[in-house]
């Protein structure tokens, strides 16, 4: 049994060198594939195509500048890019970028306190044919306020975890849960309204 190479000195050295030499290739491989995802988010945050393109370009330029210090293991490339986009977007909006705060308040009790009042309306438990509501769902999501729209899209479209969303938005996990909860409530209410307008039985939406 050979334990001589346990610490693996050589691989540390080689790996590091290789990484530096191929930073450019790495950026192409690791970051560029997420261009569509960043564009989709930018498009839906800003609400217009030209602005979305500017946001994406600035996001990628900033990412390129910061790439050398970027560690994939610490942060997936997509959440990292979306975090940059978030900051670029809110800076441009003239809103102060949210200060990053300690992500410690995962407590359900904090979040649950606001659930004491049962919601007036929400998506119920019976079957819904989602294909019938594609356009309405889109309109309902776009009708949400920016904060809510952002978490809903990060959650559903980009499939980020609560923790990743918190990192992207620079807020606490409890805040993410609370925004997601309210956003889903609002979506439920709007879809129920659409259903009523179409003359469908409102019971289908649990009202």
């Amino acid at each position, binding site marked *: 049994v050979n334990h001589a190479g346990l610490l693996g000195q050589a*691989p540390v050295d080689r790996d590091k060198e290789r990484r530096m030499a191929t930073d450019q290739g790495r950026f192409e*491989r690791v970051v560029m594939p997420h261009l569509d995802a960043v564009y989709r988010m930018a498009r839906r945050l800003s609400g217009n195509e030209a602005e979305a393109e500017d946001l994406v370009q600035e996001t990628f330029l900033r990412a390129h500048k910061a790439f050398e210090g970027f560690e994939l293991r610490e942060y997936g490339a997509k959440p990292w890019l979306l975090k940059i986009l978030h900051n670029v977007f809110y800076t441009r909006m003239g809103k102060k970028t949210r200060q990053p705060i300690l992500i410690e308040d995962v407590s359900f009790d904090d979040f649950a306190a606001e659930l004491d009042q049962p919601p007036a309306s929400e*998506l119920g438990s019976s079957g819904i044919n989602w294909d019938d509501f594609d356009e309405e769902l889109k309109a309902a999501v776009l009708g949400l306020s920016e904060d809510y729209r952002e978490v809903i899209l990060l959650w559903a*479209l980009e499939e980020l975890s609560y923790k990743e969303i918190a990192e992207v938005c620079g807020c606490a996990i409890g805040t993410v849960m609370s925004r997601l909860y309210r956003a889903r409530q609002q979506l439920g209410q709007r879809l129920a309204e659409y259903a009523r307008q179409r003359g469908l039985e409102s019971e289908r939406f649990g009202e």
Partner: protein
Amino acid sequence: MNCREAAKFLYAFADGELETRDNLHVLEHINMCPECCGKVTIQQQLKGAIAVAFRDEVAPVSLHDRIRSALAAAEDASVGPSRIISLWRPLAAAAVIVLAMVGLWSFQDRTRGPAPIPLANVQFTDASQNARLLATNVYTMHRKCTLAGKDHQDKKLPKDGLAAARVLCKELNYPMLRCGKLDANPDTEFVSASFCGVADCEGALHKGGHLIYTFKSGPMRGRAISMISVTHLTELRNLNKIHMGERDYCIMEPTTASEQDPATVVAFDCPGASHLVCLEADPKATMRFVQDMQPVSAQQAEIGTHPKLLLALTNH
């Protein structure tokens, strides 16, 4: 737990974000309550429907070109200063390596077990001869099975990753490894499950269960990830470990992998079994998935009668 108490957990449960204990409580309630079960299903459908509504949007080709030009221009603009800096790079790299070595030595010296190392600081793979041999054995088995494609599927096992893991862990009587992210990820696809084993460094064979997924899109398109779970491999005790989160991981590169076609094997022990994950990617990409993996015990398999609910149970 009644409906009112369950209500505050339902969304997080549907999203697979609950801790195991809360998950079990909600699961108990949901198994008895069709209404809450329906609410969970609707929330999962809502998520899928939003993704479908927006996912077709892609960046225009002109934007791709525009960004590449902007990046090239930025690169040119920084050529001057970066040349100067580059003289110092080897020195900086050497300093980092020395620091890493000091860190590793002191981590070995501890008698009470290594302190957690932040993921960002982990820079090495296990190069001991045994590690390489084990990694190569795992990779060889992985390649043999992935090349068989769908033929690798055992007829007795379900053609679904989650269901197969449940049957495997019951048949073998030890936990199988599951990664909810693989099932939830639109880029990955379950390929096959079978009873396969690996050879240890002495050549002894260990029977186990083998689950294989492939990436059908995204940057890792065409590559495969597989999980082999076997009874405890004493081998792992002798390998260099990195402590992260609650586990010790052995991260190894097989000798047969090349820079163009990298492969990484990550092994770790959990109560009841040793788990070996092989991904055709570098250690960093591999660890991104491995950290989301949770063993499914036979007991959990009994509880999860609803595939989505078991997914929520294991994907926390």
